[in-house]
């Protein structure tokens, strides 16, 4: 599998996700600079975490309009899988590839800690390494992670099984839902399940030395599904 990791000015988890992807056998990674209107074909496009363009207007808003995103949107339209993590999720909603929006955390503070998420739909490319209902322990680190969508959109998400992960109770201190997301949503798919956005950082739970490697299953499953 070949993955393209898009690097915006201000991305800061680009290297981390690259390391996690490359730890899977047979995965090659290209780093793609935001200014590139075109880039080599890839089996997977990853939008990493960070503070693209400083996130000064709204998180992800400016990155959503960068030259490379036109190409990402076009390829997503052709079915190329796109994974957005944290800031990448914010970019995907701002770019219209995923419904809804990410608001400031309900607690108004940045939150960095382990959370638990339950796999809500394992019948997708991204979840091929995961079991339905399994609970993963993965860190979050964000200021704007409160998922919001209107009732109509939420109903559609539910009907179409687009909810990927929900925050779940676990042994970590603090509330299970770290940011006040509606319906405890931690990650969602687009209608065709080829685009996934999630707030937690699987690349930070990718190695036993991180204190857990639940996140690595996502990368490993993807690699297997995409060959």
């Amino acid at each position, binding site marked *: 599998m070949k993955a393209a990791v898009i690097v915006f000015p201000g991305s800061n988890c680009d290297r981390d996700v690259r390391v996690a992807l490359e730890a899977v056998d047979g995965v090659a990674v290209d780093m793609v600079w935001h200014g590139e209107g075109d880039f080599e074909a890839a089996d997977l496009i990853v939008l990493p975490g960070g503070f693209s363009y400083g996130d000064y*207007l709204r998180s992800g808003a400016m990155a959503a*309009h960068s030259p490379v995103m036109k190409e990402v949107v076009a390829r997503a339209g052709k079915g190329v899988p796109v994974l957005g993590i944290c800031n990448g999720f914010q970019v995907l909603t701002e770019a219209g590839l995923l419904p809804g929006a990410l*608001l*400031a955390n*309900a607690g108004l503070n940045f939150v960095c800690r382990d959370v638990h998420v339950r796999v809500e739909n394992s019948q997708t490319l991204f979840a091929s390494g995961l079991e339905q209902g399994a609970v993963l322990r993965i860190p979050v680190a964000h200021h704007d992670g*409160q998922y*919001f969508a209107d009732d109509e959109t939420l109903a559609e998400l539910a009907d179409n099984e687009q909810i990927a992960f929900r925050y779940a109770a676990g042994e970590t201190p603090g509330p299970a839902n770290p940011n006040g997301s509606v319906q405890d949503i931690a990650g969602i798919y687009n209608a065709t399940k080829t685009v996934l956005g999630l707030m937690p950082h699987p690349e930070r739970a990718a190695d036993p030395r991180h204190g857990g490697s639940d996140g690595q299953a996502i990368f490993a499953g993807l690699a297997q599904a995409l060959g």
Partner: protein
Amino acid sequence: MRAKVHIYPKPGVLDPQAKAVGNALAGLGFDGIGELRQGKLFELELEASDAASARARVEDMCERLLANTVIENYRVEIEE
């Protein structure tokens, strides 16, 4: 020409920031405060032949970048 853009969260979108500000004001002893809303404000100079075309351009800016219409409403004022 000079444009002003006011951006507010849509009704129904939680605004914990505004709530926190309201609580803090109450904590400082300011009572009798009703609804409180917090928004963003942009002020910009732009070249345009007339107010209508200036408004159209600024609205386009709002739709494409300045506001996220999933969660925000905007209002444009043009000063000539």
